[in-house]
Structures are given as C-alpha cells and as structure tokens.
C-alpha cells in the first residue's frame, strides 16, 4: 500500500480525484485485499494521467463486484458474471471507450467463465482485473473455481476435492495478449502492470491474489490479514515470462508472480472497423 496520511484533506491525497468521494467509507472489511487493488488501479490512472472521460469501470457481483462504484468515471454494476459481456457491448458500440472490468474469481471464472474465454479469444480491447481470494466472499465464503485442493470453505467443510483453475493459464490459452499475476503485497509492481496493460490494445488480464481475512483465510487458519501478507512475501517468486501453465499457486510451497504474456495480436474492434470501412467503400 502507498502511505496514507492520517487525515485526508480534499485535494491532498493523490488518488482522490479518481475516487467517488461521496461513496466513502467503502464496504470492504479491514485488511481485505480489494482496497489495495483499487488503490493500485487509481494510482495507475493518476500516473498515466489517464483520460477518465473515456474510461468505463465495469464489474459483476461480489465483494469485488462493488469496485465499479468507487471510481469517478462512468461505471456499471452488471448481474453476476456478465461484466465482460457488458464490456464487449461497450467497446464494440463505441470503440473510443476503454472498458476496465474489475471482478472476483467466482464472478469471472464460474458463472462468467464463458464470457471470459470468448472475449479473450476475440481479443476485445479491455483490461480485466481479477481479485482472486479463493472463495465467494460476498455470499459468505463458499468454495469456487479457484479454491485450492483441501481448502476449507463453508461449502467444502471437509476439504475441497475439486481441481482449481490456474487463471493465468486459462487467460493465456484463451488468447489474452497481456497476462500477469501479483499478490496484494505487490502494490507497486501491480500498479506498473496495470499501467502497462492500460496502454496496450487487446484483451489484458491481471490476477491479484488477495486476502479475505474475514472468510477464506479465517476458515483456513491463515491468521490475520497481515499474517497473510507475510506469507505472500515468503511464498512469492517473480518469474516473468514463465509458461503460465507452470505458474503455480501453492500456499504450502510457492506463488509464482510476474508478467507472463505480453504479445501483439489484431484487436477485435479494429478488425471490425477495417472490415466495415472496406464494405462501405463498395
């Protein structure tokens, strides 16, 4: 986290111009990783002097799904899982807009998984920031598509027996042109990756491993939010451009972080525009 002055006076805090001030305080638990990610996103906007008028922040449903309501840009809170489909509509209808999807692991990869893989396949220009807290926070901490082997949640009380998705590998295999993973501890590196992704055209994906001290990390006896962050420091290794298939997340051994994919590919709305232009000249 960036250092926060004790008292925030208007105009003083560097990211305040990018935040809906009248929506503070936010709804997130203390030591939740979501705040850190939103802070990183706002810092990235600030350091790029990003054109806020063209930004549309979109999210699905969940704790993370509330993210879209905190930025001083256009924002839309869709139904559960549909943020990417909405963002596709936005980008195709008005290619001057820049959609950013901020949503949870369950929202983006369980109920919304189909939209994720197809938007990545088409290479629709958008940034997708996924906060992976290994569970469904908003509904009380149930297991989901990223819940690790044996982990305890309220719907896997005897230990999870499902095989989790490796999100960066799903993203890379689906065709994303930029794929990165950080933990909530890597606030500065995360901010840099967001900056990089915001300047790149195509489907970009950043996963942020994030504590949910109220539910997931409590059920699994990971200690306080701070303990979880310490664990992230111990476990994470940075391996840029490692094969995303091999970028494991194992709370017992290591969490592989870094920027894994950074490539170029024709973008969907550019291709649509090019085709339309030729057709209109006929």
């Amino acid at each position, binding site marked *: 986290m960036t250092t926060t002055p004790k008292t925030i006076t208007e105009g003083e805090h560097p990211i305040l111009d990018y935040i809906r001030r009248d929506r503070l305080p936010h709804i997130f638990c203390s030591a939740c990783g979501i705040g850190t990610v939103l802070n990183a996103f706002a810092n990235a906007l600030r350091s790029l002097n990003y054109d806020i008028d063209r930004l549309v922040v979109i999210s699905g449903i969940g704790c993370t799904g509330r993210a879209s309501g905190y930025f*001083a840009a256009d924002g839309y809170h869709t139904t559960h899982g549909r943020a990417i489909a909405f963002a596709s*509509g*936005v980008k195709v*209808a*008005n290619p001057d807009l820049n959609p950013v999807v901020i949503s949870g692991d369950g929202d983006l990869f369980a109920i919304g998984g189909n939209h994720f893989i*197809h938007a990545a396949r088409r290479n629709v220009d958008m940034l997708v920031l996924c906060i992976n807290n290994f569970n469904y926070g908003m509904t009380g901490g149930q297991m989901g598509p990223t819940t690790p082997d044996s982990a305890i949640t309220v719907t896997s009380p005897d230990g999870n027996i499902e095989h989790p998705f490796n999100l960066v590998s799903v993203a890379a295999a689906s065709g994303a042109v930029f794929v990165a993973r950080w933990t909530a501890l890597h606030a500065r590196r995360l901010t840099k990756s967001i900056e990089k992704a915001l300047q790149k055209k195509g489907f970009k994906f950043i996963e942020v491993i994030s504590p949910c001290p109220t539910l997931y990390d409590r059920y699994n006896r990971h200690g306080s939010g701070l303990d979880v962050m310490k664990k992230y420091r111990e476990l994470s290794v940075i391996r840029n451009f490692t094969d995303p298939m091999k970028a494991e997340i194992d709370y017992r051994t290591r969490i592989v972080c870094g920027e894994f994919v950074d490539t170029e590919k024709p973008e969907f709305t550019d291709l649509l525009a090019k085709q339309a232009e030729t057709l*209109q000249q006929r």
Partner: protein
Amino acid sequence: MQKAVLTGEIFTQGDIAAAEGALAAGCRFFAGYPITPATEIAERMAYRLPRIGGRYIQMEDEIASCTAVVGASYSGVKSMTATSGPGVSLMNETIGLAVMTETPMVLVNVMRGGPSTGQPTEASQSDIMQAKWGSHGDYEIIALIPSSVQEMFDLTIKAFNLSEQFRVPTFVLADEIIGHMRERLVIPPEDEIKIVNRKKPTVPPEEYLPFKADADLVPPMATFGEGYHFYATGLTHDERGYPVMDDAAQLALVPRLCDKIRKNVDKITEAELTETEDAEVLVVAYGGEARTAMRAVKDARAKGMKIGLFRPITVWPFPKEQLKIAASNAQHVLVAELNYGQLVGEVERVIRHEIPVHLIPRVCGSPHSPDELMKEIRRRID
C-alpha cells in the same frame, strides 16, 4: 455506402422486415446468438450493419448477447437482439437488469413451440406470459405483436421509439408464422419515419442525477463517455445511482419503474378493432392467428353474424380500455391463441365474468384454418 432505410417496395420475410425496421429506427448495434426461427434477423444484421456504419457481434450465448446490448445502449447506440423462447429464458436475468437500469433496448422474440427445445421450426404464441413475467421482481416492460410483414417493420420502429421514450426494454413478440411469412413490405422515405430518441440531461455533470425522473417518471439519460461520470447498478439505488438497501429506496424506485409504464398506458397501447361496434360475438386474436380470425370473422359477417375482432397490437401493457370498448355489446368473448391459454387470463381480468370468456387454444405448431376456427367458435356459443 448502403442506405440505412431501403425506401421502396420489396417482397420479403417478416424476420428481414424486423431487421430493416430496426435499421430504419436508428439501430446500429446488434448482438445475438443463432436460433430458429429468429436467425434470419441476425443474418440480415450481420450483412447490413457493417455496410451502414453499425456493428454486429455474434456472442457466445444469449446471456452475453442481451448483456452486450445493455452495454451498447449505455454507450449511446440504439441496440437490439433477436431470439426465440429458449434464448429469452437465458436473457431473463439481464432483462431485469435492463429494467432496473432503465435501458432502452429492443428484443425480438420469434416464438416457437415450447417448453424446452419444443418445436423449433413450428409456430407458437406461448411466450406471451414469459415476456411479461420472465424476470424476477416487480416490473413492467412493453411488448408489441405484429400480424404482418409490414407490421414487423412498423412495430420494430415503434418498439425502438417506445423503449427510448420510456427507457424500458421493449419486445417485438412475433410468432414463427409472421417471422417466416413472405409478403409485400413498403418502406417509406426516411424523412417520413417518426423517430424518438432518449431524453438527454440538460444540466452540467456536477448537477446530474442519473436516476432522478422528470414529471413523466423517466430520467434523462447520459451515456458513457460524455463526461457525466455516472454509475448504474442492478442493486436498488437512489437518484445518484448509488446502492441503498433501505425501505425508502426500494419504495422510491420500484413503483416508479412500474408506474412510468402503468400511468402512460394511453400513450403506449394500440389495438385494432374490426366490426366490433354491434358485435355480439367478439373474437380476440393476435399475431399470426389474427389473420385466420380476420378471415373467419369476415366470412361470418358476410353470412349475417354479428361478430367482430379485437386484435391487441400492444400486448404489454394490455390495451384494457380498447378491449372494453370492443366488448361493449358482446355476449361472448372468444380468445383464440396458439398456446394452451395465456392472454385469455388478461382478457378475463378486463371482462370480469360479466360475459362468458371462452378459450380456443391451439398448441400444435400450425394456426387454425378459418373454417376450423369458426367451428370452434360455434361449438362454444351455440
């Protein structure tokens, strides 16, 4: 560049007419997923939109299609999708979102036989209630039912106009008969087509409250990228668009969403009354079945029977007052529909058991012939 409005006379199919009506109304975005008997609309849009500066996208399913349409509409582009019953079933959650965030958009449902996969290539009118009640919660939508290829065109334009005026998702509820029928379509000159656009905010961004309604109960709509920096959510929200979970917020929002339609019923509803003034027998029919009914009524009139036809063109909200007028001399009301009894309930609600209301259902994919229908009528009134 091709013209958006293909003024002139063509011999074409109902589905094509719906696509051309949408383009004439200013639709420039279509997201869809193929399904019989609505696929021709998507095919036409895929061909036409890029040629007139619009955009077509085939999504991975109907949930995505409907959601992309909401996103496109919020980005300032008139948008629509087209599907059949199974697709609408998937879209229903998003239709609720569109209602909650007051999104102008048009959905064409070319109805086929259900439940489930049912009879994909056969005609049906069994999604009448789905259109009204398919999503959860209290809400109102608008639905129009065309009875000809010409009406596929005209009512699709009207659907766009109503959806823009009231910021509400609007259905064109066609049946397979009309969707796949081929007949003459007259497309008027562009400047003779009435177009309604959503109200835009007249205040600067600092003063804009995205969900504060005017006297007509409809809030002006900013779109993404205009600098208003607004937020919209499917959660219950206040005038700022911010989520609020108390009773007052729900009370201020949900009744208004319903009332902007209920209190404007006279501005929305349309029905066609044929030979109803002295009609002792009133037939109620719509869509493809109304064509059969029209023939049957005209034949019976020629033989001296005092019979008339009430054809709702707007089915939601239901044209109550028009039905009351049509039924003022009726001793029998007969509802002929291509389902096992749906709109008949609404007719009964209006008639209130003052006179008998009979259902003439048909669930088998083809409409009645006029003679069959007349026999069914006779069987019930003699």
